[in-house]
Every structure is written in C-alpha cells, then in structure tokens.
C-alpha cells in the first residue's frame, strides 16, 4: 500500500520504529499512549476471564474521570501525597460504579451486559457534556463568555509528577503497571480470583460447586469498570491541560482507549502481565504511525487501514492461543468437577489445587 503512494516501505517502517522507540522522548510518548490501553486491557482480562463481555470501557473511563475531577475540584488544597491517591481512588470508584450498574443488572435482573454497557456509554458521554457545560465548567469561561466546555485548571497538587526529566512520562505508568500486577495476583493468587475464573470456565459447573455466580458476575464487571475508571483518572491528571476537556464526544477524551484496550488485552492473551508488553507494543504502533506519516508524508488514513489489518491478523493468530486456553479450561473444568464430586458440601476455599495453572 505504501508503494502505491510513491514512498518507500522501508523508510516508512523505520520511521515508525524510530518514532515509537527511537529515543527517550519517543519511548516516553509510547508509554504514555500505552497507559490507558494497559489499564483498560487489564480490566478486560478480568471480565473476560469470567466470560463477561465488557464493552462499556469508554463510559467507565469517562465515569472515573468525572469522579476524580470532582474530587480534585472539591478538595484542591490537600497535599499531593494525599490528593493523588485520592483522585486515583475516586477514579476507581467512578469506573467501578459504572461497571457495577450493568453488572448488577446482569446478575440480578438478567439484563444482558452488552446492551447495558453500550447504553451506559451513551449515557456517560451525555452526562459528561452536561456537567462540563454547566456545573463543572471553568468559572473563567463564564466570565469570558466563551463557555468552552472544560473544567478549570485542576489543583496542581494533583498533577502527576513527571518521572523522567525532559519527557512527559508521568506517574500514570507506575499506576498502570501496578494495576496489571495486582490484577494478576488477584486472578491467580486469590480465592476470589479463582472463583471468578471458575465462573468463566463454566457457569453451571461453578454454581454446582457452590460458587456464588451472580456475585462473581457483578464483581467481574465492577472490577473491570474500576480499571477503566482508573484509566480515566490517569488521563485527566496526566494530561497536558490538567483539566477535563473534550469536544463533545467520548473519543475526544479517551482516544478510543475503551475499544483499543480490548485489542491490547487480546494481544496479551487475556493475561494481565502479558498485556503489559502488548499495550506497549500497541501504544508504540499508535505513536510510531504518526511519526511515520510525518517522515514519509503519506496520508494518515493509510495508517488507520493498516491498523485494521493488524487487528485482523492478531485476531487470526489468537487461534493458537485460544486453542491452548480451551484445552486448559477443559482440564480445569474436569478437575473442578471431580473436585466438587469429592468435596460435595465442603467449603470451596480448600479446592484450590486444580485451578492453579496459568496459561
């Protein structure tokens, strides 16, 4: 495709790699781009492991961003040591609530989560638009009469500290990695995580083994939402503008992280630790593609199409991993069944032995 537009593919790809990984600044930009992908991807790992499909990432990011913004507006004078964790926590709470709603609807009312998450995406955007235009709008905007829908510059105490001088790399990267590790620990080293995965492996078998399936479903969506909400907080407080600002769509703020994160999770085979390099790779592609266009001057939309092809390629290549996973899930399910046969009536906590395998 590049050839037909009169440029050299070699130059193109080298510009891409350079742009993504070629120097400190480039690496920093890649990491920044990767952060929300990693967080959302981690959330997807959690929910998909329970076989719950969460495509409400966009809305959950927005919800987390809103709650953390409100927090910063409410208590701007707290010292950074307190305020930063506070806004992060607020993001977790905001996104968590936005995930809990579809979670509860599914668990207790049987409302399909695809429907509710999609609808809540729409709702979240409109709520954000409303808030940014009225209650949360920068008072200076009202004075000036321009009414640009944005908040005021948020408390400097909440600015994420820059980690690497001369770049924009900020605390968010640490937050994202910690979250991914925490998710891994949760999924494979805790009882609840084990139960969650059991539900994903087979609802009926899990229920038969005494696992509270409804609660696990709710947990899966809530946890997934919290990760996305955390991404929202990171996006706001690590941003250039240090405000919540968009153009009326959710994508203007999230950059489609709610969907791209799903793909990152796919790259990472639904494993939080593998999602780390996957998100970095994906983030690098996003950053590098822009650099490639600047370097060899091909129209931008070409990169978008290539992105599509990449996704299809990855989707096809997942087949191998998918077959592995099915095999392991089957083994797990077999063990679960036999375990519950042996331990019928006992508390489930003791039957951890069969499910310890990591893909």
């Amino acid at each position: 495709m590049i050839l037909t537009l009169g440029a050299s593919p070699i130059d193109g790809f080298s510009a891409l790699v350079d742009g993504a990984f070629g120097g400190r600044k480039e690496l920093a930009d890649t990491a920044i781009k990767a952060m929300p992908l990693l967080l959302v991807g981690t959330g997807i790992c959690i929910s998909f492991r329970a076989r719950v499909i969460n495509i409400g990432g966009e809305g959950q990011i927005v919800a987390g961003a809103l709650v953390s913004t409100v927090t910063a507006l409410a208590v701007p004078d707290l010292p950074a040591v307190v305020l930063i964790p506070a806004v992060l926590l607020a993001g977790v709470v905001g996104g968590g609530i936005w995930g809990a709603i579809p979670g509860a609807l599914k668990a207790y009312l049987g409302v399909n989560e695809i429907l509710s998450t999609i609808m809540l995406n729409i709702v979240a955007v409109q709520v954000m638009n409303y808030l940014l235009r009225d209650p949360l709008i920068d008072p200076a905007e009202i004075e000036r009469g321009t009414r640009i829908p944005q908040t005021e510059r948020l408390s400097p105490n909440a600015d994420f500290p820059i980690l690497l001088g001369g770049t924009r790399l900020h605390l968010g990267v640490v937050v994202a990695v910690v979250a991914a590790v925490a998710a891994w620990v949760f999924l494979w080293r805790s009882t609840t995580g084990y139960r969650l995965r059991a539900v994903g492996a087979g609802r009926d078998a899990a229920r038969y083994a005494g696992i509270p399936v409804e609660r696990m479903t709710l947990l899966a969506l809530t946890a997934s939402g919290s990760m996305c909400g955390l991404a929202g907080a990171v996006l706001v407080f690590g941003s250039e503008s240090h405000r919540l600002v968009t153009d009326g769509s959710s994508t203007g703020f999230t950059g489609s992280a709610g969907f791209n994160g799903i793909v990152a999770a796919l790259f990472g085979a639904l494993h939080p630790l593998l999602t780390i390099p996957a998100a970095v790779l994906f983030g690098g592609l996003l950053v590098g593609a822009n650099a490639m266009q600047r370097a060899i001057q091909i129209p931008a939309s070409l990169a978008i199409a290539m992105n599509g092809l990449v996704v299809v390629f990855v989707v096809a290549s997942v087949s191998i991993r998918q077959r592995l996973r099915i095999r392991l899930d089957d083994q797990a399910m077999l063990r679960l069944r036999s375990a519950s046969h042996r331990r019928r009536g006992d508390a489930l906590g003791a039957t951890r032995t069969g499910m310890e395998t990591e893909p």
Partner: protein
Amino acid sequence: MSTTHARPDRHGAQPARRWRRRAVAAVIALGLVGAACGSDDDGDTASSDADSTAASGTTGATDTTTAGGTSGSTATGASTSEGTTGGAGGDIRVAVVLPSAANDLAFSQSMADSLTRMQENGLIAEFAMSENMFVVEDAAAAIRDYASQGYDLVLAHGSQYGASLEEIAPDFPEVAFAWGTAADTFGLDNVSGYTAASDEGGYVMGVMAAMLRGEGSLGVVGPIEVGDAKLYVDAFNAGATAQDPEVEVGVNYIESFSDTALAAEAATSFVEGGATVLTGSAQMTVGAVGVAKDRDVLWFGTNSNQTQLAPDVVVVNQVYKWDVVLADLVAGIADGQLGGETYEINLDNGGEVMEFNDAYDLPDDVRQKADETIAGIVDGTIDTGAGG
C-alpha cells in the same frame, strides 16, 4: 471444510502447526485484498503486509505533512516556496493542528485553505498539518512535537486545545503560538488568540433569511452551544427578528460536532414543521445541507463555501478567510513579537467574506438589503447583539 478437529487431549505440534500455517495464509490473503483495495485504480497489488506491524489505533487521529495540498489526501514532496513576493514572512514555517479533516467544507478547511493561499503567495515558507485531531491529548502531543521541531508558528485550531496550549507554550518561549477561536492569551507573550466575528455574517444572513422565507419559518442546526457557533446562531436569530419581528426561528443544538445523521434529522424536523430556510454551523451540517437540497429549502452556509453541496438552494456563505490574521501573525513574528495579541476576522478586514451563490437567483432588494446591513455592521451603526 476440514473433517478433523484437534481433540483437547492430543498434545502435539501437528494441529497447532496446521493452524499456524492457515493463519499466516489467511493473513497474507487478507493483506493482498487490503492492498488491492487501497491501491484501487492503479491496479497494483502492493506487497502484502503479512507481518504488518504499523498501525494507528486511535481511530481517526491523523498526522499529515503536506506542503500545500488542499484536498489533503495525497501528499507531495518537500515544500516549495512558490510565488515571487517573498515578503517579511517568507521563511516562516507554520504548523497547524486541526480538529477535523482539512477538506470538511467547514472550520478546518477554512484554515487549511488560508494556509495554502499564504504559501502559494510566498507569505510563508511551508506548513505542516495534523488533521482529525479530535482527541485532545493527541493534539496536545502534536502541538508539543511541532514546537520542539522548530516551527516558527504553531496554530491550535480548536477551542478545546486552549487548555493544553496554556501548559505547553511556556516551555517554548521562542516559538509563537496562536489558537482559535478564542481571545485569551493567558498572559503569555508568545501566545496569540484569534476569533471569528461570525455574528456579523450571521446577522446579515438572518436578515436575508427573513426576507426570503415567504410564509415559512427558519431552522438552525447547531453543534454545541459554544464559541463561534453560538455567536453565529444568536446573531442569525437577532438579524432575522430585527428584519421581521413575526418570524419564527427554531434552534436545535444537536450536542455534537460530528453526528451527521442527527443534523439531518434536525433539519428534517424543521422542514416538516414548516421551515423554508435552513442554516447551521460546524462540520456535521453536511447532513442538514443534504436535507435542504432534497426538500428544496434554502440554505445559508458558514465556515466555508458550501455551495457545491447544494448548488440550487445555497444562497450565500460566510466564508472564513484567516489570511488577514495569518499575515498579521507572520509579520509580527518577523518583527520579533511572538504573541500577546488577539485578532479577529470580520466583514471589515476581509477575514469574513460573504460569497453569494451565482446560481441562485437572488432578488435585487434582498441583495441590496444585505449590502446595506454589511455596511451598517462595518461602520458600527448596526449592533449584532453579540457581546463585542
């Protein structure tokens, strides 16, 4: 259809290898298909990208460096400084970040066109463009990148970029920044603001619309109630009512700059409610213009010249020509002044031009009234009602 399925308990490389080969084959096939589609009329099938690792996942965020390409889709080579009049800004390099496509027949196009004209006339050396930067954070990164790449003037063409610019500009005191539409320079001396007095043209068009409407009402399709869109809509309303106090003006802000379908629906509602004249601001109005065309309802355009969208029913367009602002900015930079000013395009300085559609048969009295109104606004005798 294959008759064998890998059984879960068969551990072996065989099934996996077979699938792997199939996966690669499928991807190569897809790559060829995709390449064929992309190259289309050429008939070339470019090399397939079986291992294509290039991607731009942020859907829509693009980055193009063109030296003077108006249609935006094909890029030419390095910049050429055409035109004999070098002028004071002859070696100024400009970069612009646009929130939508450079050929959207609206806000972004107005700036892209202006820059192209400037470059063709030798008033600037070259310009680089990042289009479709509707993700605010990506735009911020682009602004920062351009500044660090040594461009003399970086334009942030979108009011949502201001907040980011406020943080970036202090890091680059030798670079001149400008953003619009806005009047705030943040007290920084390397930031300028530019606005469009869209209310002026809006008022004139409101007057004209009231005269041309017959017995029907007027319909306005707006994006979000901010910035120059709000100025335009309010003034259109004011002008129409000033001309004819009985007129009904309906206003629908569809809460989006991009939802074409909703804009079309809003326009349809107006028409079915008796509107004979429509107008609107921002790039999603393409949908509304389509309705005007289909229903034979008059259209007043703003931001860019939208006549080609509906040649029979477009009456006049208020076209933004940023050239005057750019010229001032460039001249200032050449003199060493990097910012601190606000500029405005209006009917007086040629920044806003009312381009009438010759194909539409405009009655003489309407045209005369329009000219009078324009003159009145220019010399200050008519107040459009905008804050100033």
